[in-house]
């Protein structure tokens, strides 16, 4: 079903349609805001979908307390600029137990500070629909997920028994306590995201652009030492290198790449010649085979 619309216009229209569907059919939606480039695009699309009104739902950031400081600054700046209602949730139990990526490993840290924290926040506010920025091209189990993805009252995804999803007719019906995760960017690729950011001049966290940054080489990854909580191991040194990030998460778990791409055009140019996927820089996906599916079934986005 082709019209004169370009590829990006089609993707944009589909995403806006999804946003409006949720606003019309659910009583308490929320948008998960993770501050990365996909979240920036998601936010931009939400602004478009409801213009001249503001998006009729709050934005929720699940803060693991290990995000890059520049992400937090950017988050607060965007909330102020666009005037959306920002909720920040931290798993205080995890903070009390001093759960951190260094002592407990990426698995436990991510589970406690991200997955459990997210479930806490959803239960606390009673949200019945939650937008996320996941794309199907990111990872194999994501490629299988519906745009409207059902979760039972325990936030569990059952990948073997997903609701059929026909045309643009979405089944938005749920019983009390159940919820739907909604992915407006399902059909976007990484290249589409960058192209759209370029086309629409969407602000993104400066960490995506190359700059001299203090990094430590550890386990084959370049880790930015964002604060003093990262203790150096024997033999490790901090050196300033020209680096940037392809994805953003908790700083101890996110590898930088050496690059001098300091403009959007240069980033796209670099992407076009890249021979590794963006998730390659993420420790959390490599812990075990099928780890993303497992995390998703437990309630991770």
């Amino acid at each position, binding site marked *: 079903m082709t019209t004169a619309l370009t590829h990006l216009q089609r993707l944009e229209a589909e995403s806006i349609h999804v946003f409006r569907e949720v606003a*019309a059919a659910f009583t308490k939606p929320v948008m998960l805001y993770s501050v990365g480039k996909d979240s920036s695009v998601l936010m931009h699309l939400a602004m478009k979908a409801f*213009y*001249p009104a503001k998006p009729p739902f709050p934005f929720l950031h699940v803060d693991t307390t290990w995000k890059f400081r520049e992400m937090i600054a950017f988050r607060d700046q965007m909330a102020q600029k666009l005037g959306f209602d920002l909720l920040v949730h931290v798993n205080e139990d995890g903070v009390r137990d001093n759960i951190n990526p260094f002592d407990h490993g990426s698995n436990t840290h991510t589970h406690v500070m991200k997955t459990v924290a997210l479930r806490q926040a959803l239960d606390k506010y009673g949200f019945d629909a939650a937008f996320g920025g996941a794309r199907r091209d990111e990872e194999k189990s994501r490629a*299988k997920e519906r745009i409207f993805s059902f979760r039972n009252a325990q936030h569990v995804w059952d990948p*073997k028994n997903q609701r059929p999803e026909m045309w643009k007719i979405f089944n938005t019906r749920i019983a009390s306590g159940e919820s739907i995760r909604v992915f407006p960017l399902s059909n976007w690729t990484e290249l589409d995201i960058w192209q759209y950011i370029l086309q629409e001049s969407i602000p993104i966290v400066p960490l995506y652009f190359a700059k001299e940054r203090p990094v430590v080489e550890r386990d084959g990854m370049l880790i930015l030492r964002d604060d003093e909580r990262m203790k150096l191991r024997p033999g490790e040194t901090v050196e300033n290198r020209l680096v940037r990030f392809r994805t953003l998460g908790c700083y101890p778990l996110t590898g930088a790449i050496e690059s001098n791409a300091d403009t959007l055009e240069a980033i796209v140019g670099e992407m076009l010649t890249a021979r590794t996927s963006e998730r390659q820089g993420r420790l959390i996906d490599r812990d075990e085979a099928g780890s993303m599916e497992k995390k998703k079934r437990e309630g991770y986005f």
Partner: protein
Amino acid sequence: MTMRHIMAKSLAPTDGVREYLAAQEKKSLLRFLTCGSVDDGKSTLIGRLLSDTKQIFEDQLAALERDSRKHGTTGDDIDFALLVDGLEAEREQGITIDVAYRFFATPKRKFIVADTPGHEQYTRNMATGASTADLAIVLIDARQGVLRQTRRHSIIASLLGIRHIVLAVNKIDLVGFDQAVFDRIVEDYRQFSRDLGFQTIVPIPMSARYGDNVTGRSDKTEWYSGPTLIEHLETVSVDEAVVELPFRFPVQYVNRPNLDFRGFAGTIASGSVAPGDEVVVAKSGKSSRVKRIVSYGGDLAQAAAGQAVTLVLDDEVEISRGNMLVSPAARPQVADQFAANIVWFDEHALLPGRSYILRTETDQTSATVTDLKYRINVNDFAHEAAKSLEMNEVGICNISTRTPIAFDPFAENRTTGAFILIDRISNATVGAGMILHSLRRAENIHWQSLDVGKHVRADMKNQRPAVFWFTGLSGSGKSTIANLFEKKLFATGRHTYILDGDNVRHGLNRDLGFTDADRVENIRRVAEVARLMADAGLIVIVSFISPFSAERRMARELMADGEFIEVFVDTPFEECARRDPKGLYARALNGEIKNFTGVDSPYEAPENPEIHLRTLGKSAEEMVDALEHWLNERDIAEDQYDSGGGI
């Protein structure tokens, strides 16, 4: 595991990037799916396409090599199927369960491909992938030929509006690249599919595993002169001129941030629109003009099919979500009865008479199948009589909705002619429908408005109409209690009537048996009769086993608010079987009676009945006292039963 950090390759000059992006902008998009029977090589083909078009990154390739050694089915070679079978269960079992979406591009086009499962039990996931596709690659194992699932998938693709087929005769290497085998399969498929309305069928002999005729021409099939798969995908024209169709704008969301702004948001389903255009509200026939097309970047001078926009009209016309703004010259149909193709997804069969939720892109109402005209045999297209539609079956039905919907036949408009059916209790998506045409009787038979109304008739009897719906197992005491209750009401001057299950089956429902389908129809008829009697001002007492909660809910929805009172006559199965007043339990337990509620047919107990009568150890008189007590407690009794109190 140690892995060197990645050094990005040398940068492309910025100008090159701009040129590249400009070229990307002009590319068209093709959405297609791969389908066919199990093990015909669908996932392998997609893995091959991704690999040959350089869409697989090094880290993914490394993971694939690891996985191939662990789960692979191709010996020492890389098993490309593992690229798309992303769920743990799929990799363990070596099958595809759900549809996976993959993305790739060539210098000429961008592609979104849906890899769909071949197993019959996952047909609904194949339909999910097909619903958004413009072209289907039907894979056939050259050793097997056209199979049952090949036919089923082709029929579903056709029903869902796909007009372009690639017939991929795969594993041609395993039949020695034999042209005779290829020709025979192609002939079989053309014969079988000649009535499916495909505009193009392009057969290609290929080996997905070794890449023959996928992206590169094979030197082993010199007898084949057609395109390679990728050549065909890059050039096939699937454009449907939806912009040329009449304007259709299903209203999705009413945007009302303040009193000064009222915009109608939605995605244009077909046609185009510009400020100044006259538009008509489909359901009311009211007309107005488009004042503005509002967008974030400024008002638009026009908008066309596929765009998600917000329209502001000249007048304050009443429009809510589910309605449609349309071209005044060519309006959609508005009807509450129509015929449709249905593909059934759920393990609980479709039952005529049962109430489902019908959802179009933005509208929602309840619907029942009034007539299952026939089921389509996927092997030979034979039309078979059927009383129900089982999972993965396809049939043609007449559908009746509680409120009219606006639609076009699916053949004319894939967006405004489609709907899904949702189970009222589980909320599962149980079926998909494609509308054929409205039924003439719906267009010609309108409600006759009568001057003497329900309230006038009820006032004359000094009572408020009500339907007491007694449900419970056979032998639970429904009829005894109902009978006594009616006598009490009668004694206080009320006008009543009892509809008893056994009695009605001697007359009105004499033609019905005890299958699930017949039980549903049994209840539907009785509910309609009860509604007419309530309309006549009577207090109706229905005494029916009515085992399914879906039908009791349907009956409830037929009545006015507060008029339906569900009475659960709760007697345990053992007690009913012990009493066995008609000797039926003994016979059912001996297997002499089939489909007996509580024995080999389920009873779904009410979860929230208005009145719950626990009969064990109580007399019928005590139960009637409880009923009267319940009535006397209602606040509404005094307001609404104007004289005499009580009922």
